[in-house]
């Protein structure tokens, strides 16, 4: 048992898992509010990271200004996507909606490659100290910031959904659209708002990953990794999404540990979450916290 390797790996898994949790939360937000499975979640990270990078390098904005402008842009981006692409598809079979988000994903991935190229571009240095020593593991300042932001976002979500009017409206729409409409809640506005919030939150995650690893098309892969996380946690549970993300992050790194110590295959880090996904679908398809769908005739 190589503790010197295992502990840093688990710590790394928790940090990356927090990011997965943030992305998974945004995914679940869209699913809960509008029953749409967003296969383009990874592209929200990508677009947010590239836009922020562009503002910082092309326009020489200070980080906080660039960050806020990016968030404003992503809000608009999310709303426009929902209005232009998803609203005409309300009521269509689920395969059509899935294909639409897949099509969006492909389109934006290629668009980003066209505009910004295929090379990974690093962010300009933002923090005075690049990394910090925590429990013997050097952690990037950006990752610590992301942990802090993730916790803030989760608390924000919790407050939003329990105490604010719009949050309650969203929960009502998720529960029963027709009753919500009859109570005067504008369902299309709720949909648009859910997409906007999801885009903003994912963009924050994208910017964090971009600061640490550089911005490249690899960010889209977060959108694929989110599926094991939300399936594990339950498709319509925000708490489940967070836990699912953390578990998947740790699982990846544990798989890497097993691979490095005993198996020596080299691929377990990338493929283990998908095996986990299949197993979860077989034994507990609704995840840890998801509500079981009851079929009515």
């Amino acid at each position, binding site marked *: 048992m190589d503790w010197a390797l295992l502990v840093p790996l688990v710590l790394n898994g928790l940090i990356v898992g927090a990011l997965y949790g943030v992305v998974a939360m945004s995914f679940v937000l869209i699913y809960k509010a509008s029953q749409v499975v967003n296969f383009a979640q990874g592209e929200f990270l990508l677009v947010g990271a590239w836009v922020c990078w562009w503002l910082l390098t092309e326009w020489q904005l200070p980080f906080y200004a660039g960050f806020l402008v990016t968030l404003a842009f992503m809000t608009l981006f999310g709303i426009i996507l929902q209005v232009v692409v998803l609203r005409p598809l309300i009521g269509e079979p689920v395969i059509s909606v899935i294909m639409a988000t897949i099509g969006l994903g492909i389109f934006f991935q290629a668009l980003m490659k066209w505009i910004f190229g295929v090379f*990974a571009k690093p962010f300009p240095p933002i923090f005075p100290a690049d990394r910090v020593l925590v429990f013997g593991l050097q952690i990037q300042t950006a990752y610590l910031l992301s942990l802090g932001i993730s916790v803030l976002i989760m608390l924000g979500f919790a407050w939003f959904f329990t105490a604010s009017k719009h949050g309650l409206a969203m929960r009502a729409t998720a529960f029963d659209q027709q009753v919500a409409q009859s109570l005067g809640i504008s369902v299309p506005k709720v949909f648009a708002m859910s997409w906007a919030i999801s885009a903003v939150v994912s963009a924050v995650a994208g910017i964090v990953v971009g600061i640490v690893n550089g911005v490249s098309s690899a960010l889209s892969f977060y959108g694929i990794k989110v599926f094991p996380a939300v399936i594990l946690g339950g498709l319509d549970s925000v708490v489940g999404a967070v836990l699912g993300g953390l578990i998947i992050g740790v699982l990846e790194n544990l798989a890497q540990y097993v691979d490095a110590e005993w198996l020596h295959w080299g*691929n377990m880090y990338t493929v283990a979450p998908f095996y986990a996904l299949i197993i979860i679908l077989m034994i507990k398809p609704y995840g840890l916290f998801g509500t079981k769908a009851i079929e009515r005739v």
Partner: protein
Amino acid sequence: MSMRRGMLGMVAAAALAMPAAAQQRINLGHLMDLSGATSDVGTPFAQGVNDTFGWLNGRGGVSGRQFNMLAVDYGYQAPRAVSQYQAWSRDRVVGIMGWGTADTEALVRFVTRDRIPYVSGSYAATLTDAAGKSGRPGAEATGFNFFYGPSYSDALRAMLRWAADDWKAKGAPGRPKYVHMGANHPYPNSPKEAGEAMAKELGFDVLPPIVFALTPGDYTAQCLTLKSQGANYAYLGNTAGSNISVLRACQTAGVNVQFLGNVWGMDENAMKAAGAAANGVVFPVRTAVVWGQQAPGMANVEAVSKVSDPTGRAYRPVHYLAGICASMLMAEAVESAIAKGGELTGEKVRDGFYARQNWVPKGFEGVCNPSTFTPEDHRGTLRVALYRSVVSGDTSNGSVQELMANGTMKLQPVATIELERKRELLGW
């Protein structure tokens, strides 16, 4: 593509109808990776190739005949390269400038069957066994495959020799540990066996290889594994793009390792992108000088560069110069073939590669290193010039040109290792 094909069809038809026409264009295929996994290094190399043939055409071509480059971006997908090749073999190309290891190895049988010489961007050692008689299991005759520079395996062997000397010079106790890092793909895997065998021979402890993908990503877990294994020398088998991710992640994780790169693993653009993380990487450089240095042939290099950059301000990384040298090999082989007279065939061009010994293309003395090809052995050179990337400051401000000029980034020569041309090391 239909327009181009139509035109090519007409040219081929005209060629058939008038076999003695002296002004016929020379058809060459060119596979580029401008958008795929290795596009970070594929783009400058392809630029060098295209610019060289453009420059030659501007001077009237070779022997009065101009080149017709059929350049296609195949995105590092071997099946696309194969399907493109099948279109070209019918269009009667007399040579192909290729790129990646996977597609070059896939096309070996095809180019041997169709007798078309193939200069690749891949330096896989399996491409050097021209007659197929090396005795290695599964050896295939690669009589029509060439490349400019040392093979990946030979370059790795040279770096391991240097690493063994470096370990002794440092006076460190015990045996040094070596690990191969790269993607599970023919290009990074190419020198793995040869490297690990050589390392054992030189007294290294060979650790289990570490896998990381050809695309940029988060490789913290791999770096933590590297750290815990206590490796001293690590070979990075991928191109600069993903190597940068590993270098940065390992710097953060506090890994203390001497990285050894392959020819595509480090360049000036990567040094700027990775910053201090790229400091100290040792890797082979295929040309005698880099951009900005003086040599008799640099005037022509700058002329070639002006084909796509009339202002002359662009900085050309090491891969661009290597592209020029590789293209000039093909161009001079075509020249030899035309000089023989009669119809220009791929076979004659291939024989043109054997026409010269210690071959430095005319006009590029001091830039391109000498190559020698023989019908049995396509290892053009066994001399490996090792450089170290030195980054001494912040690279986020300023262009590559400026950073190289003011000394923030430097390519420092380390050693030049001349390997012996051993029969038993051919082909792997």
